């Protein structure tokens, strides 16, 4: 009976460790997907601004819808703040929508807030250049995220189970 309990506990520990490892691995992949979604959103925003001459609030909403995921929520919120007229410049609206605080390490936050300071303040060609720069920065972050994912995903997928197994052995 005790052996059966030990066995079940061991399986649970290994499973929990494995699951934890898989979650960490998934967070690397999610980060990569999120940055890709931001790049899609900014490209759509550039199209709305350069070709559609759509007002910024609506352009941000449409760009968010085109990308889906986190950008959709953030850009919709930023558009809402912007059209409310109380939150100051676009960069402040984006920072508030991103929930960014001082020292935020997310690569997209800095790129978006810097872009926000320029959004809507100049002609379409200039806007396209600023958005292009932000996309360039996000591409850099995405490449790093891809590297990190390639390095860490497989490791974390196995390491969780390994740590779970080691813990089980230690407890036995």
């Amino acid at each position, binding site marked *: 009976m005790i052996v059966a309990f030990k066995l079940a506990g061991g399986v649970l520990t290994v499973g929990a460790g494995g699951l934890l490892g898989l979650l960490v691995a998934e967070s690397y992949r999610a980060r990569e997907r999120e940055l890709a979604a931001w790049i899609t959103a900014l490209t759509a925003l550039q199209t709305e*601004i350069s070709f559609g001459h759509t*007002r910024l609030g609506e352009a941000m909403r449409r760009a968010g819808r085109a990308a889906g995921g986190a950008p959709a929520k953030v850009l919709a919120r930023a558009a809402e703040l912007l*059209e409310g*007229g109380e939150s100051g410049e676009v960069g402040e609206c984006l920072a508030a929508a991103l929930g960014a605080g001082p020292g935020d390490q997310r690569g997209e936050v800095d790129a978006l807030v810097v872009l926000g300071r320029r*959004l*809507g*303040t100049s*002609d379409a060609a200039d*806007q396209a250049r600023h958005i292009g720069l932000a996309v360039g920065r996000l591409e850099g972050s995405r490449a790093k995220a891809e590297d990190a994912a390639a390095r860490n995903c497989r490791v974390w997928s196995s390491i969780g189970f390994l740590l779970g197994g080691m813990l089980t052995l230690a407890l036995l």
Partner: protein
Amino acid sequence: MLTKIRDPVLDQICPALPPRVREAVRSLSVADRQSLLEIRLRRGRPAMGVTAEGDLYLCCAGQPVDCTEDEWAAAVRLVTQCSVYALERELSAGFITLPGGHRVGLVGRAVLDGETVRTQTELSSMNYRVAREMPGVADRLMPYVLSADRTRVLNILILSGPGLGKTTLLRDIARQLSTGPEWGSERGSQSEPCRGAGAPTGFRVGIVDERSEIAACSQGVPQNQLGPRADVIDGCPKAAGIMMMIRSMSPDVVVTDEVGRDRDANALEEASRCGVAVIATAHALDPEDAARRPVLREVLARGAFDRAVVLGRSLGLGTCERIVNLRSDQDLSARPFRLECSARIEGVRR
């Protein structure tokens, strides 16, 4: 007629003002706010209101509100909706139209493309012009807008200097023609809407609203009252818009604002040749002054207009100084008279 209409300053202009100026405008008395014709912001200088009686400083806590850099940046952001790239044409023309048809004039440093102004940067002054919807203001003029048997609209040119109510009058004429006859015509009224074929109606009014000031369309819906038979082409250059309107909507009358270029005048003349009546406005003090402007001289000489309505301020803002029969050069009104609005704003009878 007594309909309640909104206060355009509170509802439509305040949201586009920077925070401290907005607060100052909101703190004005109802009477002062209703007399506002313009709000002028100049970078680094005090914000001012312009009324028919003169200028007033806009104050917060008893102190005039200065347009600091922060206030100015907020004003530009609010007026352009953070979308300067979408307003290059408007900036090159020197004005942006706010929801509700209020025009904000802007000047700064011009960016040239050869001889033409491509856009403006480093804006330094803004002038918010309050467009007031004044239903009924054209009541006394309607008999002069229609033929003697009241079945045909005449070609009318409304003349005045800037800020004397041309667009307000034009809008109400369009509304009354479209709604049908509170002027007592044989053509029927909106109060008898469901009659059979051949029943009398108002006129089909085609509004070519290049600057979005007449109809103030938002998402294709006119924000100003224009009656049930008005079709609006919004934001389209006049010359192209007039011909599009005639081809697509077969109006009885085409209404447009501020004729100033050769091609506008040619299009109006073409419209009147097509059997479509034309009602337009132009900057001039009277028909003689208009005839000194090359564009208008030619149109007037070719007989494109039947009558001219001259606005002034001899009896205060909204005075009809003269109504001239351009065919006979005869004055049709014995003396100047005030054009009165028969609506209320916030319960105050005007």
